[in-house]
């Protein structure tokens, strides 16, 4: 039918004759021999081959697959001789084909298994379906076997496809199958393929009529040659050291190898799909994101190269020929199978160019002059030590890369730190320049001293006025006079401004101690403590006193000559040591209103002050004042005055009444039975709220000690308290009177 020889336009008769020259006509199918000569030549050929077999054992005996193939090879070659003799058709293109009686006729265990599978899966479809199915399978079987004897494998494949289509049409259209769902129909079609192909596997897979086996060997050899190709060469990002990736690659390889272990084309296809899915997994692991064909194909090529599956080509051809085209051409299976074909094709045609390397390099690799040992190859080599070595090398490489990056990172960090430092320094300098530090004189809190000094320069506005004239005093049987403190800032000259003076602030209703007018301030608040009866009387007197004396004080308080008390400062300082400066703040407005207002700043002491040491102790007057009270105005005057700086003129001092000095804090309430002091009248000095500084205290104490004429009674303190209480009371009275005055 086909001429294997190149047909020429003119065929001479000699060309048609047997090549042996026996005179008979030759046949191109018989290699140009006549039938007799062809037979004899084949005989010779057989002998030759037999000896060949015995002589050359397969070199790659180490591999089981190789052995297995060799066995089948032998068998096929052995078988191929027999039919030659009995050949009926001249259509043979290849060595020969098996005779029918060689085909397994018995039902093998696989058949039984498949039948069982059918029974378990499709028995519910009914007897008709089953009968039809098996009838068709049998028919298909017989026909394909017949075809195999008469046609080349490609044509048989076409026939098989025809039968697939036929069966599919039958299932879709025939009434027996009409009740079935489409899905079941598809499954049944698949199962039909599986069933028939499994039974026919032995004759259809890698048929002896083809050179599939040679192709297998060729590709295997080729892959072995290309074992040096690694992921890097293929531009695919499979990392060779990651354990996870390696496991996935191994899974892919296993699946690819598994393809050879099953018989039905669809099963083989499913193995391909599984393999490719593993490859996709690998890629997803290595690069992330969806995997496109650009990355997938190189990875698959890599896997195929590393797997080097047995009978790869035969499997591919088998699937291509006998897998239901309708299935193969659509769906994932088809796609991945196509990719596998592409990978194989790529490997077959691999050149230096396709690996992006120079021809010399490629040749170097191919001939083994250049060797690259990667972790992958060594993993496939049996030598464990070598494998570990390679793995460690790869790991070390990775580690050194990481270390480099870490070092780089550290350097960067250092640089940024330095830059940051510089930047900060520059900024600091800049800010320093733009806003130079000006050291302003420290703000000294306004101290009472200052206030004092100011106040000292000012004539004390508060002029204590003698409310009680001597007549009043005399009139009154028992005028209760609460000692009123008159604080004098005595000697400005003596004491520097820095030294603090504390003056108790008292309300002064009594006349100022003019005697003290050494420019000293009289700051005093007098609280006359008069019994109510006397108070009324005294009010009139006070009024007089105001008229006469305080007027002057109003006008020229500075003079200090006459400080009439027109207004009463009833600012009682209860906190001895408090730092309240409010008085100072309010000074000006107060002054306007009442020139008599005495600024009586008291400030926290620079030195500690004890109330107990407060020099002005009215209660001390328990005895002494009484004596002095009635005596003279002078005495009374002296009473106000204050111990801190007292002049000798001060009555207390002159009297040498030490008890005054000993009085503790003046503000304590006085018990009413202090009335005994009333004799003294108004002139009893009130208690200073603040104690003086030490110096003054000392002075006082000195004086005290000097003047201790009378012992200090303990009860004096109690008395003092009482007197203080009275002071408060009197204060209220004074306030009233002042209100009335205004």
């Amino acid at each position, binding site marked *: 039918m086909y001429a294997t020889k190149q047909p020429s336009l003119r065929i001479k008769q000699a060309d048609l004759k047997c090549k042996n020259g026996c005179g008979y006509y030759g046949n191109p199918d018989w290699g140009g021999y006549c039938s007799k000569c062809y037979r004899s030549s084949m005989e010779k050929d057989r002998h030759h081959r037999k000896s060949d077999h015995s002589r050359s054992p397969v070199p790659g005996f180490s591999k089981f697959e190789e052995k297995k193939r060799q066995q089948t090879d032998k068998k096929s070659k052995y078988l191929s001789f027999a039919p030659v003799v009995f050949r009926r058709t001249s259509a043979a293109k290849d060595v020969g084909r098996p005779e029918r009686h060689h085909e397994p006729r018995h039902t093998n265990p696989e058949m039984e298994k498949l039948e069982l599978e059918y029974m378990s899966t499709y028995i519910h479809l009914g007897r008709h379906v089953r009968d039809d199915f098996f*009838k068709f399978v049998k028919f298909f079987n017989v026909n394909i076997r017949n075809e195999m004897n008469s046609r080349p494998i490609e044509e048989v494949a076409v026939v098989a496809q025809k039968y697939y289509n036929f069966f599919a049409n039958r299932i879709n259209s025939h009434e027996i199958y009409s009740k079935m769902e489409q899905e079941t129909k598809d499954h049944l079609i698949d199962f039909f393929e599986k069933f028939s192909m499994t039974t026919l596997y032995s004759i259809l897979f890698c048929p002896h009529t083809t050179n599939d086996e040679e192709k297998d060997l060729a590709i295997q050899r080729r892959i072995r040659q290309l074992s040096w190709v690694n992921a890097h060469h293929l531009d695919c990002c499979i990392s060779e050291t990651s354990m996870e990736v390696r496991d996935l690659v191994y899974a892919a390889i296993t699946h690819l190898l598994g393809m050879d272990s099953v018989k039905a084309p669809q099963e083989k296809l499913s193995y391909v799909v599984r393999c490719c899915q593993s490859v996709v997994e690998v890629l997803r692991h290595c690069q992330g994101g*969806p995997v496109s064909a650009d990355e997938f194909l190189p990875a698959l090529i890599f896997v195929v190269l590393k797997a080097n599956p047995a009978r790869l080509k035969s499997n591919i051809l088998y699937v291509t020929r006998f897998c239901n085209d309708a299935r193969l051409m659509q769906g994932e299976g088809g796609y991945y199978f196509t990719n596998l074909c592409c990978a194989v094709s790529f490997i077959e*045609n691999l050149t230096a160019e396709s690996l992006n390397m120079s021809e010399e390099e490629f040749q170097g690799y191919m001939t083994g002059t250049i060797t690259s040992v990667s972790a992958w190859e060594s993993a496939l080599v049996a030598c464990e030590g070598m494998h570990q070595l390679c793995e460690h090398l790869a790991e070390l490489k990775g580690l050194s890369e990481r270390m480099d990056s870490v070092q780089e990172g550290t350097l960067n960090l250092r640089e940024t730190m330095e830059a940051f430092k510089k930047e900060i320094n520059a900024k600091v300098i800049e800010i320093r320049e733009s806003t130079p530090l000006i050291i302003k004189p420290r703000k000294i809190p306004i101290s009472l001293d200052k206030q004092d000094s100011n106040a000292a320069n000012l004539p004390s506005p508060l002029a204590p006025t003698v409310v009680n004239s001597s007549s009043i005093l005399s009139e009154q049987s028992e005028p209760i006079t609460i000692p009123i403190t008159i604080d004098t800032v005595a000697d400005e000259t003596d004491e520097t401004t820095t030294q603090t003076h504390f003056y108790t602030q008292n309300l002064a209703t009594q006349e100022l101690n003019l005697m003290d007018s050494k420019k000293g301030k009289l700051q005093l608040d007098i609280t006359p403590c008069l019994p109510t009866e006397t108070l009324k009387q005294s009010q009139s007197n006070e009024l007089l006193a105001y008229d006469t004396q305080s007027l002057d004080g109003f006008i020229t308080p500075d003079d200090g000559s006459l400080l009439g008390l027109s207004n009463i400062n009833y600012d009682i300082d209860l906190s001895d040591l408090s730092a309240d400066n409010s008085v100072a703040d309010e000074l000006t407005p107060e002054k306007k209103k009442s020139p008599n207002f005495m600024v009586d700043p008291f400030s926290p002491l620079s030195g500690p002050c004890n109330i107990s040491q407060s020099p002005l102790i009215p209660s001390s007057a328990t005895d002494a004042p009484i004596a002095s009270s009635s005596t003279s105005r002078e005495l009374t005057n002296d009473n106000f005055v204050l111990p801190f700086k007292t002049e000798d003129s001060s009555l207390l001092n002159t009297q040498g009444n030490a008890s005054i000095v000993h009085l503790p804090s003046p503000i304590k309430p006085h018990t009413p039975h202090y009335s005994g002091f009333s004799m003294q009248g108004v002139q009893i000095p009130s208690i200073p709220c603040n104690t003086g500084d030490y110096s003054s205290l000392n002075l006082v104490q000195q004086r005290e000690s000097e003047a201790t004429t009378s012992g200090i009674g303990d009860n004096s303190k109690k008395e003092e308290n009482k007197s203080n209480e009275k002071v408060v009371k009197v204060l209220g009275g004074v306030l009233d009177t002042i209100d009335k005055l205004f």
Partner: protein
Amino acid sequence: MANNVHDFKVVLVGEGCVGKTSLILRYIENTFNSNHITTVQASFLKKKLNIDGQRVNLAIWDTAGQEQFHALGPLYYRNSNGAVLVYDITDASSFPKVKVWVKELRKMLGNDVCLVIVGNKTDLEKERHVSLEEAEQYSEAVGAIHFQTSAKLDEGVEDVFLGLTNKMLEQAAKQHSRNETLERQGSQRRNVIIVDDEDTPPPASTRQCCSHF
């Protein structure tokens, strides 16, 4: 098979980095380069369409665009009904590649294959290096439809596949009618005839069998 269901195989061809994968992902998943794409692989994707009551299953095959795999193209193209040829409008060298593929496809699959030429990355219009006129002229000359898309901005992606599907449906209808007229004539190999002859008995016999039962 069922009358109204068409299974079309579409190959996606184009140089590397022209945006094939982005295009297909945009079409199938309506996402662009985001991490929450559910698809593990973007190389083989299916899409079901319904056009005028005709159900269409598109199987989109991505192909490796690298130069070194160029020779493998024919394996991919086999039996495909349509092809989407993608080029990058900002990459002048990607368009000539399209021409090569068109030639190859025409050679392999004849005129039955429906071609669509797509200029991708219109969002980078400023950097355009392939002129629209040239592309359109060429497309018309080879009987392809030209589209411009931006997978990033989701512009025109849907149109590409809709246009292609419509064309493939037309082609399928044409082919169907042609097949009817040419049935049992030379397009198939002669052994088919024999097979057909042999085909007939089995049904007959089975039918007999069935009737017997």
